[in-house]
């Protein structure tokens, strides 16, 4: 491996951006104009939500690519982005609860977005468990790719069925009118989260690669497809 690792540069940049963005979110954003201080939670909640969806989308693309090409690297990528996605989604749901309690006085609402997020988290945790129980590297890769595709396709289905299911209940939504200052802070945080996620996936990919290479001592030809 080359001695210079590009993700470390990304990591340093992400850390700096994150520090600035978090400072703005906590101290300079004019939160009181809207819903008091509680609105500041959205500066971490919304980026976590966006990035969680991005990482699972990456896992889906990686899984599809793996089933078509059979490249080991894509399987490691699926493993990396799934794990980062699970971390982000867990964070997102926790932050959502912390926002819901002071605003709507409940920790949980049976609402489409919440319910489909929780279902998505369960699915992908299941895939991580699946990965840990299959020893054979080829099978593990194919199985988790298939399960990833199935789980990802399921997300919009859950979303729309719950939306239909709860039409009798009212659907909660975030404030629609957002200040331009707030938008800027939100974007800054979203980019910080994005670069953090890129660093995490790259780092996790290297771990998966290291383990994968140790697992299959005699190297397989790259054309060995699933």
């Amino acid at each position, binding site marked *: 491996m080359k001695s210079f690792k590009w993700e470390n540069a990304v990591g340093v940049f992400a850390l700096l951006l994150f520090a600035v963005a978090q400072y703005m979110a906590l101290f300079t954003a004019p939160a009181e104009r809207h*819903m008091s201080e*509680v609105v*500041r939670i959205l500066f*971490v909640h919304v980026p976590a939500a966006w990035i969680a969806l991005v990482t699972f989308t990456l896992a889906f693309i990686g899984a599809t690519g793996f089933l078509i090409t059979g490249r080991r690297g894509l399987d490691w990528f699926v493993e990396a982005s799934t794990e980062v996605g699970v971390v982000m989604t867990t964070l997102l749901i926790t932050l959502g609860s912390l926002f819901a309690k002071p605003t709507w006085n409940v920790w949980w609402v049976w609402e489409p977005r919440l319910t489909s997020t929780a279902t998505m988290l369960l699915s992908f945790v299941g895939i991580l468990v699946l990965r840990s129980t299959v020893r054979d590297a080829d099978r593990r890769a194919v199985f988790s790719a298939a399960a990833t595709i199935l789980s990802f396709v399921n997300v919009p289905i859950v979303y729309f069925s719950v939306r239909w299911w709860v039409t009798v209940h009212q659907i909660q939504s975030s404030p629609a009118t957002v200040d331009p200052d707030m938008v800027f802070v939100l974007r800054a945080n979203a980019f910080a989260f994005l670069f953090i996620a890129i660093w*995490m996936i790259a780092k996790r990919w290297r*771990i998966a690669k*290291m383990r994968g290479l140790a697992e299959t001592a005699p190297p397989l030809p790259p054309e060995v497809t699933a």
Partner: protein
Amino acid sequence: MNGIIEGQTIFVVAAYVVTWLTLGGYAASLLIRGNKRPPEDS
């Protein structure tokens, strides 16, 4: 949305602490796992 809710700063503090701990904790686990060599069987 009725707007003004006061004295809920504790939730904001909790949210940011949770964020830093989660991201920091996972990043630490990545660094630790990345430095550990897998056991050599062959």
